[in-house]
C-alpha cells in the first residue's frame, strides 16, 4: 500500500453552501501533504471528512485503506488527529490527559509506560507533567496535543492548523517534530495559512472556495508562474494597489506589507508604465524590481487563473 489516503470527488455541503467542492487527490505513505489557503477555503472541512468526524455529502475517501463512511472505527484507530482549536481537557494535568488518550486508544501495560515517557520527552513536558493543562503556554499545549495524537503510533497523522497563534520559533521546533514523524514513515496531512510553513511540505494542495486550484511540490508551484513579478515600494501601498488594479498589462496587484507585488505581462513595459501611472496620480515610487515568486504569489496567481476571488 503506497497510497495512505485516496480521495475522489469528495464534496461537503452545509445547506446551500458548498464547503468542499469535488476534491480529489492521493497522499503517499511517509509524505508531508499540506493544504494551503485562507480561512473558509475548505481545508478544515476536508480534514474532518478524512478523520471520520464529518460525513461527506458525496464522493469517496479511503484512509489507511479504510472507507471513511463505512469503516469509521478502523479509520479512527489508524489515525492521529490534532484539531484546529486546542481541545484537550484544561482541567486535567498533562499526565492525566496522556493517560486518558492512552486509555481511549488502548495503549496499555509496558507500552503505555514507554509511550508516556516518549511523549513527555518529545514534547519537553517532563517538568510539567503534574501541571494543569490549562495553565500551560500555548506552545506547550500544542506539543501535548501532538503527543496525545501519536500515543498509539498511528500510520497517518492529521494536523489542522497545528501552529496557529504561536511564535515563529515554536513553530519551527514544532515542524522539526513533524519531520521526525515523516522520516519514521508516518504520513502527515497538515493544513496551514502560513506561507512559510507551507514551504516545509513535500506537496501542497492550494485551496480556495472549496476547490483545490493547484497541487504540486512547492518549488514546482513557484516555477509554474510564468509571468514576471515586480515588487513596488511606495509610501501609500493601499492607494497604489487601487491605482494599478485594472491597468492594461498588469494582471494582479497584491499588497505585501509596505510593498506591492504586481504580476505583469511584460517586465520591461511595466517597469516604465508603473512609475508613470503613479506619478500622474501624485505618488512617487521608492523602488521597483523583479522578484522570485513566493508561495503567496503562487496563491494569488492560482486564484487568478482559476478565475475566482479569494474566499473570506
Amino acid at each position, binding site marked *: 500500500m503506497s497510497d495512505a489516503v485516496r480521495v475522489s470527488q469528495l464534496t461537503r455541503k452545509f445547506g446551500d453552501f458548498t464547503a468542499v467542492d469535488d476534491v480529489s487527490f492521493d497522499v503517499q505513505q511517509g509524505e508531508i501533504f499540506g493544504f494551503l489557503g485562507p480561512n473558509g477555503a475548505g481545508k478544515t472541512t476536508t480534514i*474532518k471528512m478524512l*478523520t*471520520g*468526524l*464529518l*460525513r461527506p455529502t458525496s464522493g469517496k475517501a479511503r484512509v489507511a485503506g479504510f472507507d471513511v463512511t463505512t469503516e469509521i*472505527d478502523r479509520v*479512527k*484507530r489508524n*489515525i492521529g*488527529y490534532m*484539531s484546529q*482549536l*486546542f*481541545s*484537550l*481537557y*484544561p*482541567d*486535567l494535568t498533562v499526565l*492525566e490527559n496522556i*493517560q*486518558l*488518550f*492512552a*486509555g*481511549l*486508544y*488502548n495503549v*496499555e501495560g509496558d507500552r503505555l509506560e514507554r509511550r508516556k515517557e516518549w511523549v513527555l520527552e518529545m514534547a519537553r513536558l517532563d517538568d510539567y507533567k503534574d501541571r494543569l493543562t490549562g495553565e500551560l503556554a500555548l506552545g506547550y499545549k500544542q506539543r501535548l*496535543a501532538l503527543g*496525545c495524537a501519536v500515543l498509539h503510533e498511528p500510520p497517518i497523522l492529521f494536523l489542522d492548523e497545528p501552529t496557529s497563534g504561536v511564535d515563529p520559533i515554536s513553530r519551527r521546533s514544532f515542524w522539526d517534530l513533524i519531520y521526525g514523524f515523516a522520516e519514521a514513515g508516518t504520513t502527515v496531512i497538515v493544513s496551514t495559512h502560513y506561507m512559510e510553513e507551507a514551504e516545509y511540505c513535500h506537496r501542497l494542495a492550494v485551496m480556495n472556495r472549496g476547490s483545490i486550484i493547484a497541487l504540486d511540490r512547492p518549488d514546482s508551484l513557484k516555477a509554474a508562474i510564468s509571468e514576471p513579478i515586480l515588487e513596488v515600494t511606495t509610501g501609500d501601498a493601499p492607494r497604489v494597489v487601487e491605482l494599478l488594479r485594472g491597468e492594461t498589462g498588469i494582471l494582479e496587484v497584491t499588497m505585501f506589507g509596505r510593498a506591492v507585488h504586481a504580476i505583469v505581462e511584460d517586465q520591461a513595459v511595466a517597469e516604465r508604465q508603473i512609475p508613470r501611472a503613479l506619478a500622474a496620480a501624485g505618488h512617487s515610487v521608492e523602488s521597483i524590481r523583479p522578484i522570485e515568486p513566493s508561495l503567496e504569489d503562487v496563491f494569488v496567481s492560482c486564484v487568478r487563473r482559476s478565475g475566482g476571488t479569494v474566499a473570506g
Partner: protein
Amino acid sequence: MNPARLWAMARKEAIQLRRDPRSLAMAFLLPVALLLFFGYAISYDINNIELAVLDGSNSERSRALVDAFESSGYFDIIERPARYDDADDLLQSGKVRVVLVIPPSFDRDLSAGREAAIQLLLDGSDANTATIAQNYAAAIIIRYSSDVLLKARRFVLPVQAETRVWYNETLESRNMIVPGLVAVIMSIIAAMLTALTIAREWERGSMEQLAATPVHRLEVVIGKLLPYVGIGLFDVALAIVAGLLIFGVPLRGNILLLTGLTLLFLIGALSFGMFISAAVKSQVLASQFAVISTFLPAILLSGFIFSISTMPVALQVITYAVPARYYVSVTKGIFLKGVGPGVLWVQGLAMIIFAAAGLTLAIRSFRKELE
C-alpha cells in the same frame, strides 16, 4: 464495549468532577440544603395557633373552657382583650388568628340548662390554617360539652372510637415528607448533575478530540455515568442519615432493598440528564430543561405532596410516566411501612423500565459526528 476505554472515560470524568467546585457544590451541598429547607418548611402540622380570649363570663366554667383550649397544645393564648373592638383589631393586624369570645351569660345559661352560645372569630385569609383551627376548636368544644353533659346527667357516651394511626403513629407530617423528599431531591439533583457533562464537552471543543478517537458512544455515556452513580448513592445515604438523625424519621424496611431500587432510579434519572445534555448541546439550555422536566413533576405529580388518588383521572394517568412517583412510593414504603419486594415489585419493574429507557435515549442521542 472495551473495559480500558470505559475506565479511561470514568476516571477522567471523576477527576474533572473533583476539580470543579460548581459540580461539587451541586453534588454534595445542594441535596443537604434542600433536605433541610424542605424538611423544615413543609409541614402540615399546625400547632401553637395564636389565640385571643375575651372571657366576658369569667366564671369557673368559662375558665375551664379556656383551659381546655390552652392545654390542647394547638392554641397559644397570647392576648386577653377586655373589649370586643380590641379583639377585632388583634385579628385585623394579624397578631392572632383566632378569637374566642365567651359572653357574660355563659355561666348562667349553662346553669339553667340552656344552650350557651360562644363565638369563634377566625382569620380566613389563610384558609388552610383557619380550617384546621376551626376543626381543632370544634373538637375541644364538643369534648367540653360532652363533659358538661356527662357530669350533669351521669350518662355514658354510646359510641367511643378508639383510634390508632398506623405507620405514622404520631401523625407527624415530617415523617411523611422526609422519605418522599429524598426521592424528590434526587430526581432533581441527578438530572442536573449530568445535564452539563456532554454539553460542556461540545461547548469547550473537547468533544472534537474525543470524537476522533475510537471510543464507542456506549463507553462515553456509561463511563461518564459511573462517577455520578457513586455520588448519587452517597447523596441518598446522606439524606437517609439526615432523615434519621435530624428529623427522627423511622426506617423500618430493608436498607439493601432501598439501595437496590435507589440504584435503578439513579441510573434512569442520571441517563435522562445525559440525554438532555446530548440532545441540546448547550449547558445553559440543558440545565434549564433538566430542572423544568424533573422539578415540577417530582413535586406535583409524584404523590409527594398531593395524593395521586384524589387527582383528576387525566392527571393520574400522567403520573404513571413520572419516575419520581415510583421512587416516592419506594422511599415512603420502606421508611414508614417497612414493606418488602412483595409489595414493591411493581415499582421495581417500573424503575427497570425507566433505567433502560433513559440509557437508550442517552446513547441514541449522543453522536460522535460533528454538524
